[in-house]
């Protein structure tokens, strides 16, 4: 059995769950089971039933909030009971945080943030990025069970079927939470999530001011129905929330189009977006490193170019 953990947020199955379903099918190792962890997750489980052969549902108040120790205990328990050969977990921040604990519990190898996954005669072969996303490493693992985290956007989303798979309620023995979360600041924007967007518009210092960021970057993003990203410099300056940061210590994105506004292109930023399918750069400095990896670009003042672009798109 191949087990994948179906992430969800706000009552909806995340895009990553559909991508994990595709990765799981590609392995041709029999039944694909989805595991849904949470509280009040009936609608999520129903959605998962359209992309898996069976859905294991742990619906409990104890699972209302994510915790690395609780999640890893739950997943390891289900993987053991179901004799899973491969456990697929989304390469989200939380997925990459609890998956190592699952691997240790199962005494399994961990393949991290893979961009490809194949089964060759019982050996799992995968690729993943190293050296700040500049190098692709080919790795393999052979074991009774292998834990894999899958990079967002690396696999196509599975199309939901019409027949719903059977759902099974599972009981779990969960450990106590020890990391006590005393408060949270969720930055909600109403825009599409950064890692799920087809188009990302990102801004750097070159937009000038926080107001300039809103006018230019948010303005262009809203015109395109895109997500908003930011460089570390802009986040450190307090102009934008950390949740928008793209780069080594922020999010890694791989959209169809990445539009960099006033971004020079430090290597740490590039590592978060250099696999984008199409890169567009707008910057006044023609020598900026961002132009070396751009498909399209304009050398010019973002304060003139971007408003003109918004105008042009409205036509």
């Amino acid at each position, binding site marked *: 059995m191949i087990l994948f953990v179906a992430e969800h947020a706000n009552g909806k199955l995340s895009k990553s769950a559909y991508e994990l379903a595709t990765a799981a099918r590609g392995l041709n190792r029999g039944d694909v089971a989805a595991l849904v962890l949470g509280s009040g997750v009936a609608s999520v489980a129903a959605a998962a039933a359209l992309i898996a052969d069976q859905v294991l549902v742990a619906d409990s108040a104890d699972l209302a909030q994510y915790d*690395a120790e609780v999640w890893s205990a739950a997943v390891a328990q289900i993987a053991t009971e179901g004799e899973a050969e491969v456990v697929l977990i989304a390469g989200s921040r939380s997925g990459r945080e609890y998956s190592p604990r699952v691997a240790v519990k199962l005494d399994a190898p961990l393949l991290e943030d893979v961009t490809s996954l194949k089964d060759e005669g019982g050996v799992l072969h995968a690729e993943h990025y190293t050296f700040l996303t500049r*190098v692709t490493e*080919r790795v393999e693992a052979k074991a009774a069970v292998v834990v894999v985290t899958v990079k967002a956007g690396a696999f196509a989303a599975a199309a939901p079927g019409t027949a719903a798979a059977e759902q099974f309620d599972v009981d779990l023995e969960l450990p106590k939470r020890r990391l006590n*979360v005393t408060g*949270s600041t969720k930055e909600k924007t109403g825009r599409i999530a950064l890692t799920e967007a*087809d188009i990302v518009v990102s801004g750097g210092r070159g937009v000038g001011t926080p107001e300039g960021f809103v006018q230019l970057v948010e303005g262009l993003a809203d015109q395109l129905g895109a997500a908003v990203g930011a460089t570390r410099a802009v986040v450190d300056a307090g102009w934008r929330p*950390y949740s928008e940061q793209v780069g080594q*210590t922020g999010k890694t994105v791989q959209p169809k189009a990445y539009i960099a506004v006033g971004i020079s292109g430090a290597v740490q930023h590039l590592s978060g977006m250099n696999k984008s399918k199409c890169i567009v750069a707008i910057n006044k400095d023609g020598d900026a490193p961002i132009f070396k990896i*751009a498909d399209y670009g*304009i050398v010019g003042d973002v304060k003139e170019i971007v408003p003109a672009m918004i105008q042009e798109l409205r036509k």
Partner: protein
Amino acid sequence: MRILTLIRQVLDAEESVRVRNGAVELEGSKLVMDTMDEYGVEEALRLRESGAEAEIVAVAVGAARAEEALRTALAMGADRGIHVVTDVALDAIALSAVMAQIAKTEGAELIFCGGQEADWDSQALGAATAERLGWPQATWTSALELKDTTLVGKHEADEGSESFEVALPAVVTTQQGLNEPRYPTLPNIMKSKKKEIRKEMLEAYGVAPKVKVNGVEIQVKERLKKILDGKDAAGAVAQLVKMLREDAGVIA
């Protein structure tokens, strides 16, 4: 209290990456202690400076040259080093078994580890070490204080940030912004040369890699580099939008 800070020696981020014989060539390139690990050493020093009684031990597992990175940690202010010498490339899950054994032998109560180091792009070492020790973890920490035996801090979650409290012992992973690491001063660099670095052999730990590396490639995507002059803003924009719509097909 004893604090361990895990150190990796990595390619300087400004160096270009070269591949030779199926591996990234590190000889002849500038190698440094990973910035992510600098945050860990700095944070340990700050906890001590804010009143915690602590011995700070820097730990590295790697080739003979990794000693240079340990010396940097000692020059920043760590008290001593442990260097498990090996040319075997261990994956994070295997490496965590070494780290956990060292933590037990040393009686450590707090471990700092980089959130995602610049050589292997892995985020697994801290969590895997915590699991082996049966400890909780706080990952991607952006602020930290020690109140008695409880860590109080902030860290980044999937969306947004969280405030947390966690009792020691615990593993903390770092990120950019946690602090500004200090530069080693000349007197401290001189002093660090006398500090102890205990050498051990990997064989003593009975650990083998769980993942086999079959090779590496630098996949540089050919970019079109159709860069327009923006002196005529309206004209350039009209052309860009046309290309994005018709050639690239990325916007409606």
